[in-house]
């Protein structure tokens, strides 16, 4: 791709300490993501794909390596700058929606704008526009418990969009949904991508790949080729003989 990548990751490592054991969630990842692409990050659980997504969104800090987003190094930002970065540049979508139960769909969508100083009128307008964009204009005054899983995730998508970020980060967005609503969310993400946003989706739902412009395979904290990934997922476990005691 000739275009300057919107995200550049170099030798990214993230190590967690669990008790006395060190777990290398990311063990030196290099990655370029082009603006306007829809990148799917595939990998089994424990491959470090969610960790990678959170690092991209500035929700977590790397152990070493650099993350460059729009020319700015996230690894060098302080907490305050990271907060502002998340506010302006990225929108998160989570597997478990993370809606605030006491708030209506509208209030949930407005929530991110309460930290920005946008006028009240503008907030209402913007949130209403986002809700109708995800097809939930009529459900604006319902609380999350009164909405289906797919609808809840749509509210979450609207919330992610409301500050108009150029990058959307989705962590297993279809993981808690039935196949139909999951597919609806995938189409919605694809639509956002076609409107010009960079979308990065972490999933192990193979159907997402048909919308992807770019697929990244992660295994044990490292990017691998599709062939290697295939090989690993077809690895057969030899049947163990029952041990005699």
């Amino acid at each position: 791709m000739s275009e300057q990548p919107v995200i550049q990751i170099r030798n990214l490592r993230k190590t967690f300490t669990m008790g006395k054991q060190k777990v290398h969630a990311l063990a030196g990842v290099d990655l370029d993501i082009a603006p306007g692409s829809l990148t799917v990050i595939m990998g089994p659980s424990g491959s470090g794909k969610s960790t990678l997504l959170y690092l991209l969104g500035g929700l977590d800090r790397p152990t070493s390596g650099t993350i460059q987003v729009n020319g700015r190094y996230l690894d060098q930002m302080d907490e305050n700058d990271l907060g502002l970065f998340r506010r302006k540049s990225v929108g998160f979508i989570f597997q478990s929606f993370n809606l605030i139960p006491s708030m209506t769909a509208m209030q949930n969508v407005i929530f991110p704008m309460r930290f920005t100083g946008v006028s009240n009128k503008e907030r209402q307008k913007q949130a209403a526009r986002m809700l109708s964009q995800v097809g939930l204009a009529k459900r604006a005054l319902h609380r999350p418990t009164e909405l289906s899983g797919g609808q809840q995730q749509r509210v979450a998508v609207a919330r992610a969009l409301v500050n108009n970020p150029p990058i959307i980060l989705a962590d297993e967005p279809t993981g808690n949904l039935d196949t139909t609503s999951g597919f609806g969310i995938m189409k919605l993400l694809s639509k956002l991508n076609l409107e010009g946003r960079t979308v990065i989706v972490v999933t192990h739902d193979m159907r997402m790949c048909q919308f992807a412009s770019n697929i990244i395979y992660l295994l044990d904290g490292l990017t691998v080729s599709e062939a290697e990934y295939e090989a690993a997922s077809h690895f057969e476990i030899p049947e163990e003989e029952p041990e005699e005691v």
Partner: protein
Amino acid sequence: MRFWDLVSLISENLRRRKGRVFLTAVGVVIGTAAVVLLVSLATGLQKSATSNLWGITDLSRIDVYPNYGEGMYMEAVPMGGGGGGGTTSNVKLLTPTVLDEIAAIPGVKFVIPRDYMYGQGMIQFGKFETWAGLMGVKTDNLENLGYELDRGSMELRKGTIVAGSWVVQNFYVPNLRPGQEMPELPDILDQRVKLKLTKWTTDGQEVSRTVELKVVGVLREMRNEADGSFFVSMEELEAWNTWFNNGQRINRNKNGYNDVIVRAESPEVVMDVTQQINDMGYMAYSPQSTVEGINSFFVILQVVFGGIGAIALLVAAIGIANTMTMAILERTREIGLMKAVGATNRDVLTIFLGEAAGIGFLGGLGGALLGWVGGYALNVVSMQFLASQAQQQGYMSTGLTADTPLWLLLFAILFATLVGFLSGLYPALRAATLEPVTALKYE
């Protein structure tokens, strides 16, 4: 984050958990009410104590007495009267020269010696009479002493007399027949009264002398020593005292005065002037020092009472900290979300501090109200109780038991808010520094 967004978010969060916020605030209400009520009680006691203080109406006044020093106990120094003595170096007498020195102290307005009559006298008015508690003052106007006039005038000249407020009620008719009603005393203002002086010669002979005086004024009740005295000019009194002393005149240059009133230009300089006179070696005493002593006692009482209330508030503070810590555990995912959608650590800190301060504020508001109402109720009850007591024992009650000044209410609300804020510090800091990823995954 804009201020109003913050306020609305905080109030929403508080409303979301009404029950818990209410229970936590009740603790603050009790603490604040205790502080308000106890401090009101101390303030009320102080007010009724100072209002009952004997004779402290004039804060510009300083009473100065001679200092007989240690010598007072070693040798018999004659009081007033004739005799010599008073030459020991540590005996400081108030001679006219000394009075001039005192008058020269900056801030001193008047230096007025007083003296009592050294003998017996009766004041007679028609068939009425009364014992004459006579006082001579070396000034031509009692106003200079800070006395207040009820009617007539306070000017003292030869042949005039001014009566204190109570003495005019002490006139009685001697030798009333049993069953005969005491007639009412006519107004003695501008009337002539007779002062009958009596002394005994060495061989036991009674000698009397009568002086006619005109009552030119009656003083207002000031609840001090002036109420029970008649006032005449010093020259007149000294003449009578000389007569009592068998013609021997008191030498003020040698014996000084026993009682001098110094009046300062303003109450503000009184303590300073008192100090300077004391430094000169005389015994200066100002009512203001008593008032200050009493006031400082009540300030201590207020602090102690307030401190007892503050213990309740401390317990409430722990309650707030506890509630907030729980709230943060419960809302961990929400905090993670707030961070994910762009809240900075400072935003999170401010929100949770605001919630804690909000609980403190609500509790403070309720507590101030409860304390105020409680003080009022206490007053009503104690008024009734004191009134019934007073009726049984036959005196008037002046009892106001609790006094809640506005500043106390405002202070209590502010203080409760501050307590809430401080209790919120630790939980809010914990919330602000939560790792967003950990917070989002918290179950």
